[in-house]
């Protein structure tokens, strides 16, 4: 089973009233409604405000070829009307409460939120509960909104050279796994997406047992649980479609792609396949990979900035990142722009040399201590933001972990040793699991101003 919380567990919970769990140290409380909806409340009484989020455990990775982008398109359509609420009224009600709202779609999940004065929480819960079960958007509204989504794709990806490189890198790195598709969808799929596709997505995936509510702010958790039962409790649960694993077959050799787009500086993205976090207690490598990413690019004294941007000045910019809390396949990324007059090949060699150096010599105890110091301080800083705390809870829950694991995740990273960091550097950074994507900058005058550039993806193997 891929996830600690299985589908079976959720459906089982749907017929039994669940106990309330509490962790007084974290001021966090959880309950499960009879319909399977989980409610997680973190009390924070510093200011009279509250963040209310609904997370659906469905994202672009659950889409099928030909209808890529439907998860995100549905997210847009959730702001149309319901059987009870006229179209456009949702935003007006949030605004009238003095609130802010938005939503976001990822590979793994789709989430909606409102930040409001605390007195508006019941109304927000009523609104979210209503659109969880009663969404009603017309074909005309769909036709108009899908044009907005296509404009969003043009803005975010088609006219953004680095985003095109990202898209091409994912497309090359994953052949079978759905992470190969862009979250926003291919333009051609968006052009052919139908009202039925979006409506079907909603009826399949939007159900209390596939969702959880996260509330952080100046609230009493018992009152929130009572309101949740009142508003969300009336929604009926239904079974979810089967989710197939779609695991990526083993990569057996490097892959390279390039993208041509109007730009001045080239851009390079290197992506290795690495393990994700599965067992918060037993896993070690994901924590060591987190530390490795931070030693390379986690603070002002990190190696990539020190050695490549400041020291040799091979790079205009350089970065590294690892996200192990994902439902699907995890990657470790290094990227950057070569400095003017330096080549992509030089930057690639320099980035590889940084890994090679850690493979051979490891990291220093000072670097490790620095990463941990920043991590510990960050635990205090994050509490300044209600939204950051709600995002943290929602993010770990989205991949099948629990909010109860958040402190453990930090403790596990605190336990990482210099030897473990060196070991993961040796173990995972092999060319056979590497994908390299490069931006090949094109002079502006070479492009025909009448013709929008189509993102031509060139693949070598």
């Amino acid at each position: 089973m891929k996830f600690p919380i299985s589908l079976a567990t959720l459906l089982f919970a749907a017929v039994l009233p669940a106990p309330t769990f509490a962790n007084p140290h974290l001021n966090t409380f959880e309950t499960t409604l009879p319909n399977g909806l989980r409610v997680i409340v973190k009390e924070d009484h510093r200011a009279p405000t509250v963040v209310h989020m609904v997370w659906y455990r469905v994202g672009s990775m659950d889409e099928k070829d030909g209808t890529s982008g439907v998860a995100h398109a549905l997210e847009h359509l959730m702001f149309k009307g319901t059987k009870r609420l006229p179209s456009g009224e949702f935003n007006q009600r949030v605004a009238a409460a003095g609130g802010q709202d938005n939503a976001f779609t990822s590979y793994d999940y789709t989430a909606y939120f409102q930040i409001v004065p605390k007195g508006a929480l019941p109304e927000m819960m009523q609104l979210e509960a209503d659109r969880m079960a009663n969404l009603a958007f017309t074909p005309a509204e769909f036709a108009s909104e899908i044009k907005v989504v296509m404009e969003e794709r043009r803005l975010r990806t088609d006219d953004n050279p680095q985003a095109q490189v990202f898209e091409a890198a994912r497309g090359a790195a994953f052949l079978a796994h759905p992470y190969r598709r862009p979250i926003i969808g291919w333009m051609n799929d968006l052009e052919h997406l139908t009202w039925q596709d979006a409506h079907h997505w909603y009826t399949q995936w939007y159900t209390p047992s596939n969702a959880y509510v996260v509330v952080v702010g100046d609230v009493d958790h018992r009152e929130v649980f009572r309101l949740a039962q009142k508003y969300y409790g009336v929604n009926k649960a239904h079974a979810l479609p089967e989710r197939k694993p779609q695991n990526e077959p083993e990569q057996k050799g490097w892959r390279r792609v390039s993208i041509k787009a109007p730009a001045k500086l080239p851009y390079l993205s290197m992506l290795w396949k690495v393990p994700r976090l599965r067992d918060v207690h037993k896993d070690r490598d994901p924590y060591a990979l987190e530390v490795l990413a931070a030693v390379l690019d986690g603070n002002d004294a990190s190696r990539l900035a020190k050695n490549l941007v400041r020291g040799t000045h091979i790079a205009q910019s350089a970065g590294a990142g690892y996200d192990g809390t994902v439902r699907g396949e995890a990657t470790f990324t290094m990227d950057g722009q070569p400095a003017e007059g330096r080549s992509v090949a030089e930057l690639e060699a320099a980035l590889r040399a940084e890994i090679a150096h850690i493979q051979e010599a490891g990291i220093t105890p000072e670097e490790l201590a620095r990463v941990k110091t920043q991590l510990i301080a960050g635990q205090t800083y994050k509490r300044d933001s209600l939204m950051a705390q709600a995002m943290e809870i929602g993010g770990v829950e989205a991949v099948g972990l629990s909010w109860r694991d958040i402190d453990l995740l930090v403790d596990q990273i605190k336990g990482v040793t210099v030897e473990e960091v060196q070991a993961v550097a040796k173990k995972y950074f092999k060319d056979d699991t590497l994908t390299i994507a490069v931006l090949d900058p094109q002079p502006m005058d070479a492009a025909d101003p009448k013709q929008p550039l189509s993102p031509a993806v060139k693949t070598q193997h």
Partner: protein
Amino acid sequence: MTMKKHPVKTIFSFLVLVCFSALATAGVKIEHWTTATGARVYFVETRGLPMLDVQLDFAAGNAYAPPGKAGLPGLTRGLLEAGAGDLDEEKLAERMTDTGAQLGGGVDNDRASMTLRTLSAKPERDAALSLMRTVLSAPTFPQAVLTREKERSIAAIREADTQPNAIAAKRFAAAIYPDHPYGVSATAESVAAITRQDVVDFYQQHYAAKNVAISLIGDISRSEAEAIANQLSQVLPAGGTLATLPSVALPESQMIKVAHPAAQSHVHIGLPAVRCGDADYFSLLVGNYSLGGGGFASRLMQEVREKRGYAYSVSSYFYPQLLAGPFDINLQTKRSQVNDALKVVNDVLITFMAQGPTAKELVAAKKNLVDGLALRLDSNAKLLGYLSTIGFYGLPLTYLDDFPARVNAVTIAQVRDAFARHVPREHLVTVVVAAD
């Protein structure tokens, strides 16, 4: 990587509302005093979390660049962290990181900022503040780092000059501020012309106690805040007489089209409109909510996005500065439909200025602005934004307490009158990048 329903306008939500919002609803008490060296200090004691935020804002923004040296303010600010006292840039970064603190900041038209977020426990706090003090008082400005940072800056400028959003923003500023420092952007040539002496002189001239507003918020007492402000301000250079910025003139109305191969046209429509502290600001703020500032509650969003699907992002905002800051309507749309979108935007603006807002819109705008205050003040980070803007622009402290009353007092006639005077349509500039 995630996609959002609508774009988050950080400039709007932070700076515009910051200028004139209220702390009253959250019961926040601002303490204010001036140090012996002339630094203005703004302090809020919050004991909820063991942390401290400090921000220094100097009158050292891009508008103060000498002729031909655009980019000098940004370079100077960046180079403060390139070595100080007996620490080189690597040692400085390591020491600061080892305290658990985060040093940040940046430069806009008016100000250069340095921020520090640290744990408030005395050992960490003292270590971080001591480093900040060294950075502010004894920067070494190494020639080699200057040379490298000039190269990076020039490369970034050349890269930005290929990207439609950056081109549009730069052309818009140049067009609405002809012959004014607000309209001047750094170029490869202006950065190349900057010498180490320019950096030293700019620092000596601008990073002075009499030119700074110091904001502190967090887990310290008033007497501790006084000591910190004294320690930070007494080591600053003496400074020179601050140059007076030239006054802003209204531009000629014009349409500027820039060729670019992008799929979308990037559009800005606007002019210089309002300065920080202007009495008309509340009328403009309330009115603009209905025009293009209120997200889905705004007419631009309804007409351009919701009814026609022309754009993902369309909005308007006022951005008050020391001198008249811009009014800006901006959107991106598929290039083949940009003329249709422009017509819709212009129709919305003309109708709004002649007839808007409706009584219903006015009520909705006031309700959101007043009731939404609490959530714009619910963290130290957000409060710091308010404090620093109040401090830097010298806004009276009562301005904040008065905010709900000032918003609620705005009438439809005042909105129309303020828009007519601050947004004279015969001076509107339109910039379209990736125009056919």
